Structures are given as structure tokens and as C-alpha cells.
């Protein structure tokens, strides 16, 4: 029995609850459809439909078996699609990065991955560390760059890449004009940093750094450079960025003595990490991170 064909009959009649309409939908006349349904019912020894003079309805068995028939048809469609697209399908490497990574850094990571030759296409997405870790464990991403420290026990994580940061200081703030800027000079304003929910451990670490320095640890949520820059430009907060070219009217970009608030990034992938393509991609991303930081500090 051609199971797929008969499943199509079954689903069409179940959807339409009318043999005539179902037949039309399938491009058939009614008798072959009715016969097909009867053959199916005989093969399965199950009544799928109640037919009265006026109406067609699903039996209890029909109700229960219908989802399985739908599954069969959608699986068949997927196979068909996959097979037809086989010649032109590409190997994609799906990379995730956190929002604090500037556009320039994101681009250089994509370029490094593409140059590594492990995929024809590199898809880049941006999400919080918490989300990226989840997506890596679910197999929705191949490689991600997340903030350290994070809970990384369910993934493989590479070395810590320490990226220098620069304070985005509102021009009117007294610290904007100092020759040497220390962390303790950046008091009196809130800090524009990503929200705690994105990266609880890293957030707490940063807040502890403020507290240990004796300055206010009030924060305003700023997920990325854009938001941080806007808050600094409006005089509401001090931002942090790894981008040494970031500029805006009313904002002074300064390094902080001792680089006390670095952005620590780690490249992660799913366990087990021993698959060769992944290790090559991981190495390419780590190289790109190192190059970016060295370039910025020059």
C-alpha cells in the first residue's frame, strides 16, 4: 500500500469533512478517494470516519491516528525538500556573540571563521551569554563567544581573552579632564552596563569592583555600545566599551588606570570538543579576539 498517498487521502478528508471537497483538493474525482479511504480502513481494520447521509466525521480512532498521518506527510515533505536542495546546500557555521562585542569585532570574527575554511557560510547572531550558552547546549549554535565568568560546566570553553575597556565619560563629569583616570575618580554617576539577567556572575563581579573601590555601584541597563554611548552622551551614566574608536558628541573616551574592568571573553562550543572542525573554528575565533585587543591597545 502506498502509505503516503493514503495518508494524504486521510488528512484531506479529515480537514474537509466532505469527500467531494477533499477530492477536489487532491485533484481527484470522488470515487477513487472513497475507495482509497475504504482500502486504508480495511488494511488497518479501523474505521476512520463515520459517514451519515449528511455529514462526515472522524471516529475516535480517526482522531487519534490523524496526527500521526500529518507527521508522516510533513516528514516526507522535509525529505523531499532536503533531497532537492542537496546539490546546492551549504555548510553553515553558526556563531553567536554577546552584544558588548563591537560591530568591528563581530565582523573580524566572522571573517576569521570564514577564512578557516570550515564552512561556506557563517551565520552570526547576537544574544546574552546566558542565551548563547543555552543555544550551544541545544545544538542551535556551533560556536559562541561569551563573557567570563559564566556557568560553563555544560560546554567546552577555551582560554580567557582579556579585552581592555575604555570608560565613556560625559564631558561635564570632572573625571573627563584628569590626566590620569583611576576607577575611584568615576564616582557620582550610575554605570551603564548590561543587565544582570544577561550575565549574573560577570555583573556581580563588576559591581563588586565598584564597591571595593568605594564608588557608587548604581547601574543602568545598557546591553551594547549604542545604548552605553547614548547614556553617556546624555550625562546619565558612565559607559564601558572595548571599541577604541567609539566616539560621540559630549562623550570623552578614556582608558582607566590599571584596566580594572576588562571584558573577559571565552569561546565555547558543545561538548565533546574533540571534533576537528570545531577546534579549528575555536582557534580562529580566539586569534581574532587576541588580534582585536592587541590592535586596540596599540
Amino acid at each position, binding site marked *: 500500500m502506498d502509505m503516503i498517498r493514503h495518508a494524504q487521502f486521510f488528512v484531506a478528508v479529515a480537514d474537509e469533512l466532505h469527500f467531494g471537497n477533499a477530492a477536489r483538493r487532491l485533484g481527484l474525482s470522488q470515487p477513487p478517494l472513497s475507495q482509497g479511504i475504504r482500502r486504508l480502513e480495511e488494511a488497518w481494520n479501523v474505521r476512520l470516519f463515520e459517514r451519515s447521509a449528511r455529514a462526515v466525521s472522524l471516529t475516535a480512532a480517526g482522531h487519534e491516528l490523524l496526527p500521526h498521518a500529518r507527521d508522516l506527510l510533513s516528514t516526507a515533505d522535509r525529505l523531499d525538500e532536503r533531497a532537492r536542495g542537496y546539490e546546492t546546500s551549504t555548510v553553515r557555521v553558526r556563531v553567536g556573540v554577546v552584544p558588548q562585542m563591537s560591530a568591528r569585532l563581530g565582523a573580524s570574527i566572522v571573517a576569521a571563521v570564514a577564512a578557516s575554511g570550515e564552512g561556506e557560510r557563517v551565520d552570526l547572531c547576537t544574544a546574552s551569554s546566558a542565551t548563547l550558552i543555552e543555544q550551544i547546549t541545544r545544538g542551535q549554535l556551533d560556536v559562541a563567544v561569551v563573557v567570563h565568568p559564566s556557568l560553563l560546566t555544560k560546554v567546552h570553553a577555551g582560554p580567557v581573552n582579556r579585552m581592555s575597556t575604555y570608560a565613556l565619560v560625559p564631558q561635564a563629569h570632572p573625571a573627563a579632564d584628569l590626566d590620569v583616570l583611576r576607577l575611584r575618580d568615576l564616582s557620582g554617576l550610575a554605570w551603564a552596563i548590561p543587565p544582570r539577567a544577561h550575565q549574573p556572575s560577570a555583573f*556581580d563581579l563588576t559591581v563588586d569592583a565598584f564597591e571595593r573601590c568605594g564608588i557608587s555601584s548604581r547601574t543602568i541597563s545598557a546591553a551594547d555600545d549604542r545604548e552605553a554611548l547614548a547614556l553617556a552622551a546624555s550625562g546619565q551614566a558612565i559607559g564601558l566599551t572595548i571599541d577604541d574608536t567609539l566616539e560621540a558628541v559630549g562623550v570623552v573616551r578614556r582608558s582607566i588606570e590599571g584596566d580594572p574592568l576588562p571584558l*573577559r571573553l571565552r569561546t565555547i562550543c558543545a561538548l565533546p570538543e574533540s571534533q576537528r572542525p570545531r577546534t579549528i573554528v575555536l582557534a580562529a575565533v580566539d586569534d581574532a579576539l587576541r588580534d582585536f585587543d592587541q590592535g586596540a591597545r596599540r
Partner: protein
Amino acid sequence: MNGVSIHDDIRTVLAGAGVQGWMHARTLDGNRVVDVDADVSVPTASLYKLPLLIAFCEMVDARLVDPREQVCLTSMQRTAGPTGISTFSDDVVMSWRDIARLMIAVSDNAAGDAILGLVGVERTNQTLARLGMRQTKIIGGSADSLRGLTNDTGARTIAQAFEILADLDRPIDPSAYDPVLSSSTTPADMTHLMAELWNGRALSAEQSLFAQDLLNGQVWTHRIASGFAYDGVQIAGKTGTLGALRHEVAMVELPDRPPIAVAVFTLSARPDGTLPRADRAIGDAARLAVRYLLAN
């Protein structure tokens, strides 16, 4: 807190504090439990002192040791640690039972290793077997653990080993964090031990009271006790701490309510030596579990 279940609520509390957590809580009869990965093996840190206490009390019951016998603990080769005899400069003469008290009250490493020297690793593991703690193994005491940590980190001193462990830029996976390579246990085994002790099945009546009294005398209030910060609650327990590992096992007794055994183990994402949020999360998780078990 509105979670889908008590387990989701507890997981949320622990994840929100930046720790991976494993937890078990149970009524004395074991009919009602809260289980959050409770059968996963985790390194004990100082929790080894808890079954060690039971093994010591067994020796007292068997008249193999006189708990009042005066013992000299010399200052030579004394196990390092932040509390108790470990911090003393000179020789000490004390009774075995007082040494045991310090081992539990302030997690005294020198006291713990002294008791382990008396009891032995083998007898301790026999006690574990007798108690039915099949997922627990003790392979050494505090000195062994600190030596292993120093080797793993390539440090010259213990202090340097802890500095390296706390270094954010050099994440390491020491064997101290590996349950296969160190003394390890599960939250479920630990609450089982506490229930056996409180049910009078682990030791004689006299030694049961003695052991419970020692646990009641633990001084720490920053972990499980922080979840029950009011008068009238009795918390009898033992903490365990090593780098990013922060644990506590305790019997929690609210006024006029049946006791609930709780074991919370955590491993923090941050390597910092001081992490009060992790300590408080242990208290919060314990409070959620105890409240749930008392209500249902």
C-alpha cells in the same frame, strides 16, 4: 516566588546567584523529598568531617577509644587552615571529644586530620558502608586535599595555590573539583546520614546525642542558617568549602515542627574566595525546600 515547581524555583535561585547547584531535602521518614540532581557526585571539601564524626563516635561506642583521653597535638606538621587549632602556634593538649567538637564547630582542619589519624580512612569508609551511603567515598583528609591542590596549581605554598585558584584570568580544573579524583558524596547520601543519626539508627543513644550536640554547635550563620534568620530555629550542620565549592548539610528544626534534613552543594562560576551571594543562595534554597516539605 511563582515557579512551575519547587524544583524550578530552587534552580532559579541557584542560577541567579551564579552557581551550579545540587540539593536534597527530606523528612525524617523519607516519605517526602525535594530532589534537585541529588544523586550527582560532588567533591566533599570539609564535609568529609561529618561521616568521620560518626565513625569516631562508633569507635567510642565500641570502646576502642576513650573520648576523654588527653591527646597532644604538636605544632609540627600541623594541617593549615583558617580556624581553631590550625591557627595555633604551640602544642595543644585536649581530649578526643573536644578535638571532635572543634572539627565540627569551626571546621578545624588540624582537628579533622587528628581525628582521621585516629579513625583511619578505611574505618571511615566502613562506616559509610554500614550507613548505606553507597555514593560516598573518603580518600583523605584536609592535608591530603590541600597538598593535591598545591600540586595541581603548580604553586609553592597553599596560600599561593588558593590565589591561583581565585585568579579570574586563569580558569583551571583542579582535581579538587573532580568527584572522581577526590573525596566525594551526593546530597542524597548526606541527608540520609543526617536522618539515620536523628532516627537513632547510626549510633548509641548517648553518642547520637553527642554528635547532634556537636552539629548544633556549628558557628556558621552565613549559609543554611541565613535562610532562617530568627530565634527559635535549630540548625545542626556542617559546611564544606574549597575554592568555588560551597556546601552545607544540616538538620533544620522550626519551632514545634518536625526536623527536615537539607543538603545543598554549589560550585560558583566566579572563582573568588569570598562570595556572600552564593552563601545566601544556599540559605534561600534551603528555606524554599523546608517550607515546601512542611506544607505538603
